[in-house]
């Protein structure tokens, strides 16, 4: 029963692609109304319209408790930035679990994961007809002996032009296979670790931005030196209105919930931006799977019609 409910949520919300789905949150509405008031006075400069952000003395975010505290590895520390202003303001410093973000990146596992993602959903619909499927070819073209020409039984034999194909593609051909549970788990860990190690991972407090102007996001990404393509990951699959509207026109700024995260997307986008809530959720999930005591049942081979 629970699984069915989850299924409905996923199909309704996440796969409709989150960047088109928005609900105005409480904090954003106040900024939006302010924005509207200023628009009425017909000021065209975006920077002038942004309300100044008033913050308590920094650092706001002090520490973070790690689940399954690491015994022999040091936690990695990262800055937590803001999305309120174009310029980066560091709100604090947090710890990241080394089992998730500081694993030695295994390039072969990453490759396996990318290959699996590309292939497991692929179905080839290429088809060729066999000699008995091609139209015609039931009659013997000429008598066996006497004509002086070669002997044939059918005009659709594979040696004839227009004849059937012997070992050609047969539709539909599925290329489905399931990669091992731990291989996929380690693929995620390797990719996250690689992203952090290569300075392509950034943490923000939340995805609330002051305007829905696409140029705000452009300027922000340009100012901070984030890659041309950025993947924003939040815990909830319903994203704030402003960032949804701002990123909608840009195909290379994409929003994703934590359950939608995958190796291919992380590699396709240059920069990965996680919210604090997303980090909590991601770590909780990955550490749960690493430390569960019924891992054998979870890592069992996939059986058809079992799910």
């Amino acid at each position, binding site marked *: 029963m629970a699984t069915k409910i989850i299924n409905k949520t996923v199909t309704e919300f996440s796969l409709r692609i989150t960047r088109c789905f928005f609900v105005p949150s409480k904090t954003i509405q106040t900024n939006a109304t302010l924005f509207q008031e200023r628009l009425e006075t017909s000021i065209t400069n975006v920077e002038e319209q942004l309300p100044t952000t008033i913050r308590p003395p920094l650092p706001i975010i002090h520490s973070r408790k790690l689940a399954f505290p690491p015994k022999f590895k040091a936690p990695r520390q990262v800055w937590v930035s803001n999305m309120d202003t174009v310029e980066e303001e560091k709100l604090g410093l947090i710890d990241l679990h080394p089992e998730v973000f500081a694993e030695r990146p295994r390039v072969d596992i990453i490759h396996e994961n990318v290959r699996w993602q590309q292939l497991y959903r692929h179905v080839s619909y290429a088809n060729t007809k066999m000699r008995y499927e091609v139209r015609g070819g039931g009659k013997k073209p000429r008598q066996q002996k006497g004509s002086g020409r070669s002997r044939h039984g059918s005009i659709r034999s594979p040696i004839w032009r227009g004849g059937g194909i012997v070992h050609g593609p047969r539709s*539909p051909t*599925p290329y489905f296979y399931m990669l091992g549970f731990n291989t996929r788990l380690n693929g995620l860990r390797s990719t996250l670790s690689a992203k952090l190690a290569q300075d392509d991972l950034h943490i923000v407090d939340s995805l609330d931005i002051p305007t829905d102007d696409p140029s705000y996001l452009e300027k922000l990404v340009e100012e901070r030196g984030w890659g041309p393509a950025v993947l924003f990951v939040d815990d909830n699959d319903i994203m704030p209105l402003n960032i949804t509207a701002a990123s909608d026109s840009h*195909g290379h700024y994409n929003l994703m919930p934590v359950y939608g995260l*995958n190796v291919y997307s992380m590699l396709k986008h240059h920069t990965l931006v996680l919210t604090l809530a997303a980090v909590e959720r991601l770590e909780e999930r990955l550490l749960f799977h690493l430390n569960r005591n019924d891992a054998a049942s979870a890592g069992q081979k996939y059986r058809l019609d079992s799910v």
Partner: protein
Amino acid sequence: MTSLLGSMISTLGMALRYRPLIGVSSQVSKANALFNPELTTVRFRYHADKVAKGPVPRRHGYEEKLFQSGLLPRKVSVDKALPMPTYKPKNSWNEKRALFGQNDYIDILGPSNEISQKTLHPTQLLYHVPPWLRGVQGNEYQVLLRRRKFVQKKGYALGHPTKWATLNTRIKKLYTYLNHKTKSPFWKHS
């Protein structure tokens, strides 16, 4: 001893040239350069510089037989180049391509039932694959058997008589071929 050292130096002469040797003349200092923990080799040649100078030649010795330059094919009478489709680069960031692979790890990262620990499986999200083909891994014979199983209940034989006949013929032929003409895999022999 010295001859051995001399042979070592001569064979490693190329390596020596690229090692930083300061004020070297005697064989002893050269021997030092062969193994000296204080010295280290420094990379100074990069493939990127070679590429920057110009295209790196590939397939040395291969002679291209297709025209690489000159006029495009055209009709002599009209003297106008044959129409070619205008090149339109693919949009790498359209919705489908930008979000490719989303939800593939939903069984790891998605919520799980607190009691049974059950999650959604990526095979449940293969909406663009026919329902009878989701999560199916097999050869043509196995796939066709599954197709027949799914299709025979819905009155497929009445609605698509030719396709039903083709399906059954194909299964029969594959049965004969696989069981009478081919050997079972080595791991099936006892």
